[in-house]
């Protein structure tokens, strides 16, 4: 119970940011008074809801909403889509179900499927790691992985085009990655404006 209340107030502190640092410290001190009364959990929960309501009111909070939105709405679902397409057999068959050309599969190119699957696993894993690094604000890591992702995507595009004679789905994936990387770049710029952390990487 104690650990949960502490975690909720710690999360509230993170949501309040520098802008409301004094208030976050005040909540932490009052938690002790609530604990003495046996109401620490409801107090901590209230602090977290108060902090969440504050998020859109300050620039750091809006940045947090944007970074979590990017991670949970774009980056992680892309990884999930890649894994789902891998599990459905041929990596792009789930996209083929939505309409479009079916890739040509033969005894010759089926040999290359494990390598293609491996590349897609690398892309999916890189997405999950990028989501984590985004939330950690580790921009050096994000840019390193982003570069790797771009390189793997070009390889994927060429590999699939040459071996499976289909460009539609790899191009769709490349377009999705380009949108993702553009969004990450925009977020990095915002981070540099707010905190100055990623500025040297952007120059």
């Amino acid at each position: 119970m104690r650990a949960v209340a502490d975690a909720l107030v710690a999360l509230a502190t993170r949501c309040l940011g520098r802008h409301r640092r004094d208030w976050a410290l005040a909540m932490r001190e009052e938690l002790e008074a609530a604990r003495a009364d046996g109401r620490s959990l409801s107090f901590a929960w209230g602090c977290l809801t108060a902090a969440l309501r504050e998020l859109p009111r300050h620039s750091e909070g809006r940045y947090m909403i944007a970074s979590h939105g990017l991670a949970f709405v774009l980056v992680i679902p892309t990884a999930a889509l890649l894994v789902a397409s891998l599990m459905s057999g041929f990596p792009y068959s789930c996209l083929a179900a939505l309409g479009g050309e079916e890739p040509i599969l033969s005894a010759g190119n089926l040999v290359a499927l494990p390598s293609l699957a491996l590349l897609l696993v690398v892309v999916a894993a890189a997405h999950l790691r990028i989501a984590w690094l985004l939330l950690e604000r580790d921009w050096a890591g994000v840019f390193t992985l982003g570069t790797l992702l771009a390189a793997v995507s070009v390889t994927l595009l060429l590999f699939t085009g040459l071996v499976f004679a289909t460009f539609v789905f790899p191009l769709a994936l490349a377009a999705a990655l380009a949108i993702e990387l553009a969004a990450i770049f925009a977020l990095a710029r915002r981070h540099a404006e707010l905190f100055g952390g990623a500025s040297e990487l952007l120059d």
Partner: protein
Amino acid sequence: MLALLRTLSARPRDWRHGYEMMKETGLLSGTLYPLLMRMTDQGLVEAEWRPPALPGRPARHAYRLTAAGLALARGADAEDRPRGLAGASA
């Protein structure tokens, strides 16, 4: 907000702590803190770190009404009073 103004204006010179005000007003922390933040931003409430009552305890954030906050509280009270009297005479 009225409950908070009323509580703070009852002893306007005293500094109050967040949890103490929660108990007095019946407001939950999720309501009290956003209200206090807004009122502090608007210059109705002043906040300060006060030394602990008991030695060895950490300092606590305390609040009280500013002159503007007190005027607002008294204005709200004055508005409520005729309504209360009208209700009592009806």
